[in-house]
């Protein structure tokens, strides 16, 4: 079994039980509206992360390492946190949800860009202060 299949019977059994459940969930969701859009999103999720986001931040990191040798983490960490906030709160920072939000609440999305920039600046300031402090010590 192991020689032919390449893993233990538990491996095969687990897949035989759970892959049909996954297939059922996928077939069911495709029965609702906009099936092709669900497929597009599922496929795009992997492609965008593995072939776009990860190579992009790896290239940025490499560029950073070449530019600020020795002090990379003092740039990498605040920049990483800032970009993480931008990625996760794209909807509020870029005002993407503004129309729907105004419709449900009667209010405006306000100040998100400013607050994101202020917090990012504060992170860089803390990082810079730590850098100076540690360089003084050594």
């Amino acid at each position: 079994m192991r020689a032919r299949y390449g893993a233990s019977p538990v491996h095969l059994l687990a897949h035989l039980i759970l892959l049909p459940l996954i297939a059922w969930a996928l077939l069911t969701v495709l029965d609702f509206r906009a099936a092709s859009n669900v497929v597009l999103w599922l496929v795009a999720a992997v492609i965008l992360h593995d072939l776009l986001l990860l190579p992009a931040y790896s290239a940025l990191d490499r560029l950073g390492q070449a530019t600020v040798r020795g002090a990379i983490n003092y740039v990498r960490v605040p920049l990483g946190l800032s970009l993480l906030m931008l990625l996760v709160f794209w909807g509020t920072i870029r005002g993407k949800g503004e129309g729907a939000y105004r419709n449900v609440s009667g209010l405006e999305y306000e100040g998100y860009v400013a607050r994101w920039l202020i917090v990012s600046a504060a992170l860089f300031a803390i990082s810079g202060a730590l850098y100076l402090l540690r360089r003084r010590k050594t």
Partner: protein
Amino acid sequence: MAKLAPSSPRTPPGPFRPGFWRSPLRGPWLTSALGSILLVLIGIVALTGFASHAAYMPNLPGNAIVPADRDLPLLFDWPTSPIWLYAFNQGLHTNVGLIAIPFLLAKLWSVIPRLFAWPPVTSPAQAIERLSIALLVSSAVFELATGVANAQYWYPFKFNFVVAHYYGAIVFVASLVLHVIVKTPVVLRAYRERGVLKPLRDNLENTRPEPGDEHGGLVATDPAPATMSRRGLLAFAGAGAFTLLVANVGQSIGGPFRSLAFLASRREDFPVNKRAAAAGVTADMVGPSYQLVLRNGDAVVALSREDLLALPQHKARLPIACVEGWSTTQEWTGVRLSDLAARAGAQNASQVLVESLQPKGVLRRASLSGDQIAAGDSMLALKVNGEDLSMDHGFPARIIVPALPGVHNTKWVGEMTFS
């Protein structure tokens, strides 16, 4: 770069070559550590997610968004106490979901060389495993992306969010269970060989590639010098989690924390989730001619707002929480649902269908269970914080039931049908 990584002449160039991936941090221990952290976080997100699905009580009339005959048999009667149960559930679901994002990014970074393994398939077991990994990564990113977008009122997709997020969760959890079954021996071996926490002791100078990795292909064959320790990497992901938490959690906790939630979409003290104008409810519909209609079989009772105010009034401080994770606690005053049931001649009603004056649209009606009608603090609220409800908060009358998902607290109530 003294030694070149071994690769067969047929191996395609670039990321398919073992020497391409050079970080000295990658290895079975790092991936195991990130996987263990994620398992706890994702476990919380999944449990609270399925609990929230049950909290909508899809088995009652008008409540199901996913049709009952296409649902999993995982439903149970959602309780009315503690009163903060739904607020807590959704606070966990959304905020732990955010915390999981940086750890998922780190986890995916740690295993990226595996995507480019060459040859791509060496056995039937590996082929089937790669399929389940593709489903796992795809559904994980899908769930987090759709959840985050929904909480920010951003709908860049054409599908129904609830339906896709629910079935996506089933794909995600099932492929995660598979992953855990397959990888537990690998994780245990990594912990046994390297210690569970021991690699965290290494500072930057002592950070070396993990020794030996005959099964994985994760450890770099041509490692670059370390620029960050392993504990540094975990702290980086943790700092990301902390930043996202601070940016958002205030909308779930409320009080003074609300203004700290600098990127959350709900920073107001008493959010409105559906304005009267947006719902199509006009001043005429709730004017002096307004009557609440109670039905019980053929019996019909009609009550004006004055009639309702003349009934015994109950007061309670209750949180109302949205599936999107925000919550607010207010002092509500109104008529107990059990008193209304008695008025309608349905003392022991097993359910009630509550319909809004809202002419059309989703969530214009919702059913409550017998327990929810009977709960002492369940009421048809007429006032909030001592003042008449505003139009946007459901004037002339709205449902408030402890621990009920926010949108099921129907506003502008026009009819209640007991059975």
